[in-house]
């Protein structure tokens, strides 16, 4: 479904991104490569801005060794406040506080069966990342469950004459209204 969106209405749309959405991606990419290739972020942004990363709820320190598989959930955030915010940062000096839950601590690779080819990955964008990169991501297109779209933009799918596919998913692409 294609939406043309004027600037004042971006708020609720961006909020879809924090709850999570699916994207098509090459599988087996590192978090860094995923952010570059699938999300279209440049290196300076990844290094300078994305200081907190979770892969399937595990805080990630090394974004070059953490890998993204079919069904993975990757969450991206800017630097966060509070001691626990600092604890969650990549390569935090306080990482010992989260011993046991960090990526790699459990000794097993997370993710599903498919380790190559293409598949769907769930993404969440939080705080500044959501605001700064949300419009670009929505422009590239995201995949949502029909119910999620309905909750965020009531009536939008029906109004656009859109019906979900057999898997209950709809594609949403948003372009800024001129």
């Amino acid at each position, binding site marked *: 479904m294609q939406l043309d969106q004027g600037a004042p209405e971006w*708020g*609720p749309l*961006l*909020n879809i991104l*924090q*709850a*999570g959405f699916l994207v098509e991606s090459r599988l087996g990419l590192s978090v860094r490569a995923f952010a570059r290739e699938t999300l279209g972020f440049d290196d300076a942004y990844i290094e300078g*801005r994305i*200081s*907190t990363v*979770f892969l399937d*709820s*595990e*805080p990630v320190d090394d974004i070059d060794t953490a890998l993204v598989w079919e069904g993975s959930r990757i*969450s991206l*955030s*800017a*630097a*966060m*406040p*509070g*001691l*626990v*915010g*600092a*604890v*969650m940062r990549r*390569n*935090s*000096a*306080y*990482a*010992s*506080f*989260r*011993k*046991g*839950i960090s990526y790699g601590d459990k000794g097993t690779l997370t993710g599903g069966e498919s380790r190559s080819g293409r598949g769907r990955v769930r993404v*969440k964008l*939080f*705080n*500044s990342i*959501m*605001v700064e990169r949300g419009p670009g991501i929505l422009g590239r297109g995201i995949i949502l469950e029909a119910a999620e779209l309905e909750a965020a933009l009531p009536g939008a799918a029906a109004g656009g004459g859109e019906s979900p596919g057999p898997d209950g998913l709809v594609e949403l692409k948003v372009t800024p209204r001129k």
Partner: protein
Amino acid sequence: MDTLLRIDMGAKGGPSIKKEPVGAYAGLGGRALTSAIISKEVPPLCHALGAENKLVIAPGLLSGTPASQSGRLSIGCKSPLTGGIKESNAGGQAAQVLARLGYAAIVLEGAPAGNELYKIVINKDSVKITVDNSLRLLGNYALIDALKPIHGDKAAYISIGQAGEMKLAAASIACTDMELHPTRHAGRGGVGAVMGSKGVKVIVLDDEGTKMREPKDPEKFRAANKVWVEGLKKHPVTGGGLPSFGTNVLTNIINEAGGFPTNNFATGQFAGASKISGETMAALETQRGGLATHGCHRGCVIQCSGIYNDAKGNFLTKQPEYETVWAHGANCGIDDLDTIAMLDRLDDDIGLDTIEMGATIGVLMHAGLIKFGDKEGAINLLKEVQKGSPLGRIVGSGAAMAGKAFGVERVPVVKNQALPAYDPRAINGIGVTYATSPMGADHTAGYAIATNILKVGGFVDPLKSEGQIELSRNLQIATAAIDSTGMCLFIAFAVLDQPETFQALVDLINAFHGLSLTGDDVTALGKSILKNERDFNKAAGFTKEMDRLPKFFTRDALAPHNQVFAVKDEDLDKVFNW
């Protein structure tokens, strides 16, 4: 700031006033001062609501100066909730005004023989104490509305609601913000009950005719403040994340980490997290004509707060903090921001600690009194406190009391104080601080970033992790030191990442007081505060067995990580070995 104002509420013939030089307490501010006075002057075995306890209200070393973020007020006493020493701090206007009036602290002592309710009015010329029973059982909002026409809208008000008057163990003390709303609370540990036991409903602080405090070295001070403000503004957290989304920006993060206690600590992730997140709240506030970026007192450049309007666009409450959103939201299974904001408003009005109330309602939901997610039920429980019904008095006495009254084992408290918004099974390190802080479970006890303060001029390698025990120790030392400056703890992030910003803080203190403190002095100060507090607790009967988390944290694994709190008891006992 070199005068102690002692008010003996139990003096024969009515309250008496004594002004005296700070004397042996010179050079101390905020938590350093409250804990020094309590540990020296209050018998540890006294009853917290008895005449022997004292309530000490102290601005920080830099409060009342033009230094940005310096408006935190420390309130200390023996806690009716924990039975140990307590320092609880609040934002709002009071610290700045009290410091400008020249007081290092107000010390409320004794207890009135009768049942009168007192109002204390302090301005540059006088201290007046009058009986005003017309204020009895007013909520904080109605109280300020009643006093504004008399004392004006320039004054700062420190007050208690119904919970404080009823001397309930979760009662808070409210401080008014810039809009004169009673929204900034010294929430933890039942300090409001101690104010109630002194018969004091409100302290009105009027600084008309006073001046900003003068630094000893104005030029150096100005220069340091410039570097300080620049540092806060340029840092990505204090300059960006906090102002845009408030502290509730943490909801999505802690939830994603699986450390967001849900349904009375049953699980670590809440399905409704994105509905109550800082991102959602900021969008809603803006849409309703409130504010997503706002300070809790004049002179704050970070501005982590905001204004939350109801659906009709009328003021409902200040932007609820992360801990409040967690306590009344995920912990109670409530995913509705308007309900959370209403609960926050009621807490502020009745004068209750939001963390303790969220934990208490969670325990009562666990007991089956109402269901998880029951929005109306949660609101009604707070209204019971307002009414002073027997059930309300149990609720207002905190989670440990509610757990006992309703036979619940899973009660998330340490030293009877409810754990805040981070599950120690997912984030073991914070559990070390919860277990060992002399304050009871307290997230702010180890909030600040100590490592750098301890190693001035030689910042730690961020790639090298310290162990959890050492880290918790250092964090607690540094936090105690920062709590004595009057600085809001959110400065910690900028101080962590930017050595020049840390140096600016030390320079501010030195230039203002004509001192030459070093990092070592700061460390020594933090240690001496903790030592005072631990000595008091020991004499009050605390043992090392009380530096533990409740059993269920080491027994019941938490989803999604299926982890328990795994730090050994003998390691917990090493936290204060320095």
